[in-house]
């Protein structure tokens, strides 16, 4: 029936629809709400940061693929775009353009290409880039002026002291009342718009929690991420923030809310900690990974030097991933005990 003969291969002879490219595209789509929110809050600055990040990621990725004599795939799969997008979203809005390029370059070179490119990297390249900038250009990476940066344990005290700031600026009359709680929730979900005369500081994509959650819902719906890592991560953050909360009872609710919904927590839980390449493969392993990353984040927030050590925490998780995968293994079907 065919001249060259039939095709013979080893089964299975059918295949699921998802491919790496489709998943990447899914992640990119899921980040669109966050991008829109970032543009709403930071206007042109957000566009600048994200565009520079994505474009430089694509160009540098192509260059490195060429130098390392790999197939140049930047235009056919979208992973350079995804890396650039995530990187852009976790940068402060007022970072200079050249620093973005340096970060992308360091991240892609040291975090990925020397290891052999997509799939071989033990650490998330976007985070490697972020950490390089954090340690390399600390002053440009400072987000301490942002409300969302106020998540250290002292921060909640500041919230309390600046009570009038919140009541006058945002109409939150009291922390205890239901109305106050709802308003607070809405503000933390939508983001704190700067008051007149103030400038908004913070990371481009981390202002609006709701946008991130919408993207996450999409990812869950498409089954691109499983619940293990987000639940482990948010669970770790939640448990630690309740367990080690030392302030007055009145402020517990705003405290937890801010720990969970602000800063990098949500992007981390849904978009970065879920990066398949650098995280465990088993459900239980993912849960352990998420919980560890969440707890290290909180340890750092409570007692460490950084305002938000979440990305460092995930890098620690990345480093531990091979060990987690070695220890947390599923039980094979029919394994006879005491073999």
């Amino acid at each position, binding site marked *: 029936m065919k001249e060259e003969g039939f095709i*013979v291969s080893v089964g299975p002879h059918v295949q699921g629809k998802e491919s790496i490219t489709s998943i990447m595209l899914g992640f990119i789509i899921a980040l669109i709400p966050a991008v829109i929110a970032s543009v709403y809050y930071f206007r042109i600055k957000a566009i600048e940061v994200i565009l520079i990040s994505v474009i430089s990621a694509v160009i540098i990725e192509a260059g490195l693929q060429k130098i390392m004599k790999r197939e140049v795939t930047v235009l056919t799969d979208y992973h350079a775009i995804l890396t650039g997008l995530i990187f852009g979203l976790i940068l402060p809005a007022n970072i200079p353009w050249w620093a973005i390029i340096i970060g992308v370059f360091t991240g892609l070179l040291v975090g990925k290409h020397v290891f052999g490119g997509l799939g071989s990297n033990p650490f998330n390249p976007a985070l490697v880039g972020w950490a390089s900038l954090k340690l390399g250009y600390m002053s440009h990476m400072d987000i301490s002026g942002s409300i969302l940066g106020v998540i250290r344990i002292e921060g909640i005290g500041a919230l309390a002291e600046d009570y009038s700031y919140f009541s006058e600026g945002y109409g939150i009359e009291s922390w205890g009342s239901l109305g106050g709680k709802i308003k607070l929730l809405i503000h933390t979900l939508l983001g704190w718009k700067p008051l007149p005369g103030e400038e908004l500081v913070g990371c481009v994509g981390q202002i609006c929690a709701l946008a991130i959650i919408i993207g996450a819902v999409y990812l869950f719906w498409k089954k691109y991420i499983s619940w293990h890592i987000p639940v482990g991560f948010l669970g770790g953050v939640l448990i630690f923030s309740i367990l080690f909360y030392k302030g007055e009872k009145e402020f517990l609710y705003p405290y937890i809310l801010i720990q969970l919904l602000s800063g990098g927590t949500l992007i981390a839980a849904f978009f970065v900690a879920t990066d398949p390449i650098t995280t465990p493969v088993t459900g239980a392993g993912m849960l352990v990974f998420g919980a560890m990353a969440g707890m290290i984040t909180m340890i750092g927030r409570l007692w460490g030097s950084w305002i938000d050590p979440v990305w460092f925490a995930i890098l620690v998780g990345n480093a531990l991933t091979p060990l987690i995968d070695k220890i947390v293994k599923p039980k094979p079907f029919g394994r006879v005990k005491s073999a």
Partner: protein
Amino acid sequence: MEVLRATIYPMLVMGGLAIFFAIGLGIAAKVFYVYVDPKVKEVEGLLPGANCGGCGYAGCADCAAAIVAGEAPVTACVASSEDVFVAIGEVLGKTVEVKEKEIAMIMCRGTADKAKRKFQYMGIEDCRAALLAGGGDKECQYGCLGLGTCVKNCPFDALSMGEDGLPKVDKDKCTGCGTCTRVCPRGIPKLVPVSLKIAVICSSHDTPPVVKKICEVGCQGCGLCKKACPEKAITIVDSLSVVDPSKCTLCGKCFEKCPTGAIQQLLPA
């Protein structure tokens, strides 16, 4: 006094420490004495360190131990040349008889256009893996599959995949380690003495009608060469012609008769 103390004290301290530890070590070395043959290390240093496993031991270190222990001959390493054996012999105080160097030869001429395929293979680019799908895509069940497993595994980079789909041996680089022979699922690369002058380049044990149908260049085992050879150097074993090089005079009668050109002269007469 002060000066004296400043020079004596360090000497006292260090001398004391040294005596203490030297005695300790000396006693320990006596009490806990374990013999290790230094020759093993020396021999290991002489071996190529490719850990190819051609000698049948788990790597060069293992082989060195076996050589020193007398379990393996000095010439056990298949990847080393004469001078290495002589050097090992020196270490062990043995004289060495050197056997002739062997290199690999690809015993198949069934290129893509000459040998038929059963089907299109789709899967892992590896000859051993290809056998798992329909038993290999070549009609000839003895022929080279051409996916280059031998090429990938040669520890000395002596093989390359030719344009015609058959591997090629770089005679200068090949050390005769035999890795290719072992990894090839069909045993196509064979080790032959470098001075081999004539050979039948085919591995097929199929009968004449079968070979005729599936391969233009295979040895059919038809026996025309055997009949033509005046020296009786040729026998047919299981449908494959075999030449005894010690009898062959390279008279060339067999080449004339072979219908497929499977029998080949390798060196000038």
